[in-house]
């Protein structure tokens, strides 16, 4: 059901203000969503004044600077810092993306940083992605082959391999799924762009022999057809992929095949 307002325990209140201590002239205000499970209460927005003269170019650098120099209690996921692992996915300046590949210069005015939208928050910028991983598991994202031989490789033509371009690069950072209003309202049933892109990736894999079963599995009013081509997913994807188009391709395959 569409619930536009946040639940009572989730409304955001004003938090602490960390004034600059470096005396820098080039300051930027960074508003960060904070919630600590040990102290409870409502989530708050803390504001940090960050010295931009001594800060590298990405939003993750800003967060690292805050954690290292201003407030070590700030919690966020990060690992590779090169847009490969997908850990630092969050909402910056009203748009989902990876903190490590999003330049802070692209955000006008104050930098607002929130966790990925419409998730249960574990702490500060860390959202609970268990639901998404369960859905990912439900599409059985592994190769299913009839091939009896265990020693011979399954050959794929160059053309068939090319079909996987734009699908296999997905790093499952969840930027797309958590940007999707349909996924916000129906996330328990609708699979969402990230998982559907992966479903598509296995459906079109020429080496996979369960194509029909896979198609039948996603052919569901709620699982698939909740996509209303809002395209928040495509505009959020930090890898430049197009989940909306993949979903449209699945719909097309279902419309043109006799299942």
């Amino acid at each position, binding site marked *: 059901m569409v619930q536009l307002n946040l*639940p009572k325990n*989730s409304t955001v209140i004003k938090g602490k203000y960390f004034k600059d201590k470096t005396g820098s002239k080039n300051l930027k205000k960074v508003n960060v969503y904070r919630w600590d499970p040990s102290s*409870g209460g409502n989530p708050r927005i803390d504001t940090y004044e960050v010295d931009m003269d001594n800060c590298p170019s990405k939003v993750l650098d800003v967060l690292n600077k805050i954690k290292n120099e201003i407030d070590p209690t700030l919690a966020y996921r990060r690992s590779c810092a090169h847009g490969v692992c997908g850990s630092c996915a969050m909402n910056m300046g009203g748009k989902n993306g990876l903190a490590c590949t999003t330049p802070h210069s692209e955000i006008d005015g104050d930098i607002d940083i*929130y966790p990925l*939208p419409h*998730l249960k928050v574990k702490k500060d910028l860390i*959202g609970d992605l268990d639901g998404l991983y369960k859905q990912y598991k439900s599409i059985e994202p592994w190769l299913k082959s009839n091939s009896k031989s265990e020693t011979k490789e399954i050959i794929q033509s160059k053309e068939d391999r090319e079909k996987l371009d734009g699908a296999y690069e997905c790093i499952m950072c969840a930027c797309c799924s958590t940007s999707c209003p349909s996924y*916000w309202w129906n996330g328990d049933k609708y699979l969402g762009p990230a998982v559907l892109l992966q479903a598509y990736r296995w459906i079109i894999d020429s080496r996979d022999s369960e194509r029909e079963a896979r198609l039948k599995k996603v052919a569901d009013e709620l699982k698939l057809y909740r996509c209303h081509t809002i395209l928040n997913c495509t505009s959020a994807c930090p890898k430049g992929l197009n989940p909306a188009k993949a979903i*449209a391709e699945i719909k097309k395959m279902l419309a043109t095949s006799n299942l």
Partner: protein
Amino acid sequence: MEDKKPLSPHIQIYRWHISSLVSITHRITGIINIILITIICIWASLLLLGESNYEVMKYFLSSLLGKFFILGLTWSFSFQILSEVRHLIMDLGYGFELRTSKITGLIVIIGSIVLTIFFYLIGKNFI
């Protein structure tokens, strides 16, 4: 513990862009159209009950509020039809690139206003 976890902000903080705006407007105009078509049908059926009933509606429609009503309906129809064409093209698998979807979205928004003016002028016998 589970229930204590807050829900992160969503529609309150997410930035709108052309494609999401067109999509939500498509849904809203869809609902408006259903309601308004029903009202038009009732108006038409009032004809069967005689002239005086029909006149009430006619009187309303020539008032300022009534004119706003008609203009709104015309725009709502125009938007819905253009947006529907955009959706049909997307159902065929085209127009998903960010640039293209932005352009088609803008065409829908501007086109709906142009169509409204066009219908208005036709109604006024200017064209």
